[in-house]
């Protein structure tokens, strides 16, 4: 009998012990959850990458292969100044043939555009995409070669009209223009960006060739008789060389 009582006491004692130990375990789980939550709140510390992003305009490359009248290449680059502001520049070279019913002109030249991009897109967490607006000042040097021309005439009596195949050069021409840019840049792989943009240009000054006109200006593209406006677009691929990281939160305070 005593044996049985002893056993049951032992049993109770074990049960009690187990109970305690179970309670203790629950406490430790709660504690560890609290700990891990604390650690997590500390680790929500999103950092933005700052650096130099360089790339090339794919549309000009593709057009060089497809279009016999065009050869062009443009290197693009930007440097991140603050969370939203980027210093941006493009440098390029182009050769374009303007062919109309009465003129055939080859324009060759190179250009430099510099300015800023401002990111209008509020990124989620650590994403670093851009929907941006920008401003550029562009300058280019170029020359035209008038390959051939045909005299325009409404008179059908004196035909054929005079035409010339003697090429004529117009050298040492320059132009300065301003641009407003709208575009997107998306990070498709780590540090690799693909972008699309449109450019609205306004010609500030140009050297007019004597007895001719700048029909095409490298970097500015086609000129129009109606005014000083010009248009362009770009499809580019670029790679970010990260130089340093900065907290997104502290960057917000700036």
């Amino acid at each position, binding site marked *: 009998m005593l044996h049985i009582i002893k056993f049951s006491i032992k049993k109770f004692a074990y049960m009690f012990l187990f109970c305690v130990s179970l309670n203790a375990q629950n406490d430790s789980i709660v504690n560890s959850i609290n700990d891990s939550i604390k650690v997590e709140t500390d680790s929500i510390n999103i950092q933005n990458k700052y650096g130099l992003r360089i790339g090339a305009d794919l549309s000009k490359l593709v057009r060089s292969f497809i279009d016999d009248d065009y050869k062009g290449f443009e290197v693009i680059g930007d440097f991140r100044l603050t969370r939203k502001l980027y210093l941006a520049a493009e440098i390029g070279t182009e050769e374009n043939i303007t062919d109309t019913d009465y003129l055939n002109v080859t324009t060759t030249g190179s250009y430099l555009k510099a300015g800023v991009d401002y990111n209008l897109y509020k990124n989620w967490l650590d994403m670093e995409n851009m929907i941006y607006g920008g401003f550029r000042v562009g300058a280019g040097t170029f020359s035209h070669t008038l390959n051939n021309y045909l005299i*325009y005439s409404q008179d059908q009596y004196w035909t054929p009209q005079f035409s010339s195949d003697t090429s004529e050069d117009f050298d040492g021409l320059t132009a300065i223009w301003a641009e407003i840019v709208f575009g997107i840049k998306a990070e498709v792989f780590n540090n690799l960006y693909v972008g699309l943009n449109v450019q609205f240009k306004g010609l500030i000054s140009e050297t007019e060739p004597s007895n001719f006109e700048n029909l095409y200006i490298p970097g500015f593209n086609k000129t129009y008789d109606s005014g000083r406006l010009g248009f362009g677009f770009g499809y580019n691929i670029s790679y970010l060389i990260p130089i340093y990281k900065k907290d997104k939160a502290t960057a917000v305070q700036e």
Partner: protein
Amino acid sequence: MIQVTILFSYATQKEYVSRACGYKTIFENVIVTQEDDGDNWIQLIQSVNDNLTVENENAAHYKIFH
């Protein structure tokens, strides 16, 4: 039936007009003469302007009297 031959001698100069039209020709030192056929149906060929150029295609440049 009167058949008269007149000769135009000139030097040309091209002038840029526009992207769509390209160049036009300006005729300079235009001298108009008639071949002497003994009949002299044309009595006088007179230049309207003094510098003998043909630039404006909508205006008369030479008057031929008979």
